[in-house]
């Protein structure tokens, strides 16, 4: 097993006096797609936000490529190679699709490289190219999700964090977006950490998975093993099928 690109040890996060994460351990290896499953309030998004730096952990360690990352401010982590597509998409509604994408490359100064990344994102999501001069607020939910992922890819990250990319989307669009994530992973070897409530789709896409319950990891295994696990099936996959 190669060294993990992202490693979390005993991560604790507090909201005020309430501890939301009670010591989370997790490792992601280069080239992997890893998913975190769990119910509402289990701490999935909190974990992701701590990794991207939008939340400050109260204890524990986040290591990226072997170096501590939890002491680095959020905007610097993008430069390190961690980019997040946030929950609820958060695209800039009053800016055009292209301007939104260029924001993703804000930390980069290599103009030809940025143009390459833009072309890459347009190839991945051709609808974004068709709508490049349109205001992002006028896109459909699925298109906005593609834009949010595209924006994160524009930072040319080494780890992509995806927070609920399927949220509020029709099954067909979920399929399309997950297809695109797999394509990026396979063609570029990009490491992906995916937080999902749609466990069935996530386990089909991911190599490995972690299951969270009320602020703890309760289970982790290969995606296939998790999908076959009776407990996971009854709790997250809607029973046997």
């Amino acid at each position: 097993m190669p060294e993990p690109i992202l490693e979390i040890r005993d991560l604790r996060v507090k909201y005020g006096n309430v501890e939301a994460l009670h010591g989370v351990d997790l490792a992601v290896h280069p080239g992997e797609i890893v998913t975190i499953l769990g119910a509402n309030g289990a701490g999935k998004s909190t974990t992701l936000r701590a990794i991207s730096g939008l939340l400050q952990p109260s204890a524990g360690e986040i290591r990226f490529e072997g170096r501590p990352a939890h002491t680095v401010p959020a905007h610097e982590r993008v430069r390190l190679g961690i980019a997040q597509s946030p929950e609820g998409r958060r695209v800039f509604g009053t800016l055009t699709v292209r301007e939104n994408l260029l924001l993703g490359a804000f930390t980069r100064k290599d103009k030809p490289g940025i143009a390459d990344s833009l072309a890459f994102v347009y190839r991945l999501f051709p609808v974004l190219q068709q709508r490049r001069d349109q205001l992002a607020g006028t896109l459909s939910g699925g298109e906005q999700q593609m834009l949010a992922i595209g924006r994160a890819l524009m930072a040319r990250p080494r780890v992509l964090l995806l927070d609920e990319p399927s949220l509020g989307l029709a099954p067909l669009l979920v399929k399309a977006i997950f297809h695109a994530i797999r394509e990026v992973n396979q063609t570029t070897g990009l490491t992906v950490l995916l937080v999902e409530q749609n466990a069935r789709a996530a386990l089909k896409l991911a190599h490995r998975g972690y299951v969270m319950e009320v602020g703890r990891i309760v289970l982790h295994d290969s995606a296939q093993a998790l999908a076959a696990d009776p407990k996971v099936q009854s709790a997250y996959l809607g029973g046997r099928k």
Partner: protein
Amino acid sequence: MDRKLLAAYGAAALLLALAPRFLDAYWVDVLDNVGLYALLALSLNLILGDAGLFNMGQAAFYAVGAYTAAILSTRLGLPVLYALPLAGLAAAAFAAVVARPVLHLRGDYLLIVTVGLGEIVRIALVNDVFGLTGGANGIFGIPRPILFGHKVKRPEDFLYLIWGFVAVTVFLFHRLEQSRFGRALNYLREDPVAAEGSGVDTVRYKLMAFVLGAAWAGMAGSIYAAKMTIISPESFGFWESVILFLIVILGGSGSIPGVLLGAALVVGLPELFRGFATARMLVFGLVMMVMMVVRRQGLLPLRRVRFKAADVARAERERAAARPAPARAEVSP
């Protein structure tokens, strides 16, 4: 910058250059005031319009600049135009110190803090802080500026000085809008969390907006001091900050031509309404209210906002035409 806007700027510059030929000294002085408020409102526009930080204490920075220039020129005999950059630096340094601890505040909270800041500065000036500000009487005998051996004294002299500075400011701020810094401020205003998550150092850019806005207000303050030759705390009260806030919101947040037009209306209209005698501020207030109700986005809003409705319509037409092409087909490898 598009051609129409350039033409409008050119026409405005020509009219202003010729104004002293057609207008008496009183109206030229009104134009001077419009120019000063335009400078101040442009400085606030960086903070309020571009970065979206609700600052209702801009008069504090204006005061720091004006007093710096007044003190340097009356006590040290420094020519008042040399004091201009120093006034800007003093206001910028002041902003860096006072803004840093409150930058994490948003919207209404920041607004309340900045109102407090403006009042603290005004009261400090009244209380003759450091024994330098002359208390409630202020500072007298600020020398007139000398430009190319020519003493700037009459309203028309100031017209050229002030509007020359406005022109430089407009040019620089349009450049700034297009820059990485300008884009960062826009992202920040639209969604600070998404900006931070995309690698924009939000604290640094907010602070830079404050510092740069304050520097410009400070320089405008030094011109004001040179024009009036007397400054006192009452010129830098809460009302000044409110007026500047009003100009930016009314003209069109983040829009440079909008802010210029806003300054012309907010400063110029009360003069035009002099015919209403004592009721003129009432009429002025009513006009403001009606304008805000019928045109909330400002008189000359940012391009993006203006084209929004058209964009939506186009998007819907395109989508209707493209149906039934699901996104699935478009992303298959």
